[in-house]
């Protein structure tokens, strides 16, 4: 994902979680999180536990999400340069603050927060010092844990921790679906009922692992009416307009298969495909495994002949542990798990 893709991803995430975007540019978002997003992104399980148990009105956090660090800092620097020149004459020119001031002017972080944003400026210094103090004791402290900053800033580049949290949140909240295809408006006759078929759709992640690893994604759809199995099913879904509500004038075909059977068909299709792959990597890993096992056998066997029973026991234990470690490290395996799945009602009998 490049910066632009990240930006797009973040925007869609914020919109679909109903966060309130207070300010945005191609390089950043300033948002007031929705309760749903706050739960997933702010690392405040105790706070949410408190809200859930007492029924208190939740106060969600605001966040500055920067998707293009360079561009954002540049624009802020030029803005700040202009304002500093006009208002106060270079008070902190010598000091290099570790975290740029994050409270953009004109925005009140919480409803009813008093005072102009300028007033939070010195607090930023204290927050910085507090952060440094915690850092000295813990080595490093992540920005979001520092509650002295009212609007924490997060740089969301690919690989950053906060983006990873967004990924996890998306996965947790996008795992199981039940959707209907929206019928074409033009062709629909008010008195005619369209036939829909239920499909099981699964997005599989396949991991080929030994001491190294490679992955593939496979998407299958299995018709619950006929048992037909379609590949690249996810792409097909994306080309359609889907809705969570049953459209009018639609009837669904009777399911001929159980979910269990459909699952088995998807798995068999995948398995057949996987069997046709080249497994040189696995053979090589198995060879490495055997070689390593032979090496330690050669090493430990003479030691196992020690006359001292105590020593023998210790050696045997070590030998076993090392064998286990080697299998753990090298044993080739293919793991199939689902990223997400759902039941999709699509037009037509298929």
């Amino acid at each position: 994902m490049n910066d632009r893709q990240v930006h797009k991803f973040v925007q869609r995430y914020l919109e679909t979680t109903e966060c309130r975007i207070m300010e945005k540019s191609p390089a950043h978002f300033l948002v007031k999180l929705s309760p749903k997003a706050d739960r997933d992104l702010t690392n405040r399980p105790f706070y949410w536990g408190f809200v859930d148990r007492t029924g208190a009105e939740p106060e969600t956090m605001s966040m500055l999400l920067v998707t293009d660090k360079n561009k954002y800092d540049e624009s802020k620097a030029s803005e700040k340069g202009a304002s500093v020149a006009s208002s106060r004459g270079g008070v902190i020119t010598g000091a290099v603050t570790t975290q740029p001031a994050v409270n953009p002017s004109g925005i009140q972080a919480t409803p009813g927060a008093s005072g102009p944003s300028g007033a939070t400026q010195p607090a930023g210094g204290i927050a910085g010092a507090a952060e440094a103090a915690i850092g000295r004791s813990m080595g490093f402290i992540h920005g979001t844990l520092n509650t002295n900053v009212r609007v924490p800033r997060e740089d969301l580049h690919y690989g950053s921790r906060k983006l990873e949290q967004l990924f996890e949140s998306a996965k947790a909240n996008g795992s199981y679906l039940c959707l209907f295809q929206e019928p074409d408006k033009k062709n629909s006759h008010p008195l005619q009922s369209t036939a829909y078929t239920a499909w099981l759709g699964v997005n599989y992640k396949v991991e080929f692992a030994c001491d190294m690893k490679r992955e593939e994604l496979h998407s299958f759809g299995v018709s619950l009416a006929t048992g037909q199995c379609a590949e690249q099913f996810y792409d097909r879904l994306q080309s359609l307009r889907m809705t969570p509500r049953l459209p009018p004038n639609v009837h669904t075909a009777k399911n001929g298969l159980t979910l269990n059977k459909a699952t088995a068909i998807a798995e068999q299709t995948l398995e057949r495909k996987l069997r046709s792959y080249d497994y040189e990597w696995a053979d090589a890993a198995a060879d490495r495994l055997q070689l390593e096992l032979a090496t330690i056998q050669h090493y430990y066997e003479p030691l196992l002949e020690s006359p001292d029973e105590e020593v023998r026991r210790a050696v045997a234990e070590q030998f076993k542990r090392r064998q286990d470690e080697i299998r753990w490290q090298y044993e080739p395996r293919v793991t199939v798990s689902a990223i997400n799945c759902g039941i999709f009602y699509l037009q037509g009998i298929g």
Partner: protein
Amino acid sequence: MQPPIEQNRGEGPTSLVIRKLNASVDLHLDRTWYNELQQRIDRNGPWDDWTMYQLAVEAEQSKLIGSFDELQCMRSLPNLEPMPHQMSTARKVLNEMSGRAILADEVGLGKTIEAGLVLKEYLVRGLVRRVLILVPASLVLQWVRELNQKFGIPAVAQKKEYMWQYDVVVASMDTAKRDPHRDILLAQDYDMLIIDEAHKLKNKKTTNYQFVGQLRKKYCLLLTATPVQNDLDELYNLITLLKPGQLGGQSEFSANFVVDKRLPKNEDQLQEALSSVMIRNRRGDGGIQFTKRIVKNIELTLSAEEQALYDAVTGFVRQRYDESGGDWTSMLSLITLQREVCSSRDAVFLTLVNLFKKTAEDSPLRPKIWELVEFIRNIQANTKAEKTMELIREMNDKVIVFTEYRATQEYLLQYFRSHNLVAVPYRGGMNRGKKDWMMDLFRGRAQVLIATEAGGEGINLQFCHNIINFDLPWNPMRVEQRIGRVHRLGQESDVHIYNLCTLGTIEEHIVSLLHEKINLFELVIGELDHIIERFEKGETLEQRLSKAMLESGDSSELRKKIDDLGNSLTRIRSEVESEEPLHITTPIGAMMDAVGQSVEVRP
């Protein structure tokens, strides 16, 4: 010890299916999703959001590991620019060594970066989750900081017992091997174990060694700049810890590869065996491209009062020496006095007071010492401090002022403060936390750091590129250490070094010796060691200088003696420089070199 995925997910009897895919591979089908989907169908919901579903797939697509051997982690590290040898080391550990290796680069080539790259790659690939990093106590926080800031790895420093359960934990070996921690750690499965300063594990009888052997780990990195310090057994032990049997059993190893403790045989075979578990990058000959050092000697003339004090002290010191009948070994405090008088009156004063206290009450020395104190009283201003202030104001940039003396440090702090210049102190006696604090203040808000100590692990001051030597140590290595704090790998700007040098004092000679004769400030790193080693046969430069100082009757005699010292230094320097680039001449050293590659290092 199966891979943990399979064991932890079991929710029902059918949630995990294992089938044979072919002769060497099993297929593991994780079916937890099926049970959950069935439940939701039965209860008619709740159903998730379509956009989230799509975002989840896109996230997975972006994270997909497309190939076994291409480095993936760099995509996630936009702000890190590793050097080529660090990248190639990481690749080799991952692709050829299966994640068990000894990283034995020479000091300063970035073993931490290499380890960080390997770790990050395994994390990104999902092959590693639980990590234990054992390092000397003084380096714990530095590791935590580097992993978090440079690699975005959420490492924590172990402080409380429950913290052992975190995914990536950094702790000191001394803590880890002690009860009750020991048992906790031995009960875990670590996907990866990293040990810094691993040469401390060379003796297999130690508890450290046995403890590390007992830890259950999949991948393992041992970091050390000195895999062999004394004999080949150390190397054998280290490798056995990593991969037992790699060099055969102890007796086989001795029979096959060892002539004598320090003399290997069958070098080619040994080298091959070593290179499958160890990587050693060395600095290329002359390949080190550091930024420039720009040296400026600031010549100062003492005020009349300061000069009077200097002369009086010099006279006092010589007189004492003559009285002692040439026994200069007892003259230590006097030498100190001589050196301090070049630094500040505060430094001299303290020593004089101590000397006064130690002297018997009826000693004729007492009035003489008092006389010197009177000279101090007359001094109103410190010429050097004023000049330093002027320099700092001019450069308008972060700067470190080094002094040898605590009293001078205190004086400068107070002097700068009274002139509204923010300065923070740094000295050896401070504990780790305070040192870190001072460092933070310097990085954040203070323009000046006044340091009495240059050594010590883990002080990285690359963000600063100005040094003022308020006074100079007589030991060239200490001068080099001072500069090395700032002028090191990672320094991107040229480094400015200012030497304050009061004319007509011993200091003038010292600056000339270090700068012109040894050319200390422009030497290739490592070269100084060789020059000093050769020069100091039995007697250090410091001692020789002291002797010259004491034995000279007047300044012209002193000048001559110092010129002699200077000439022999110049001679040795040209000898060293004309020789072939130095190779480690011991057989073990040659062995080590053969395993590695030399790299061109550019900051």
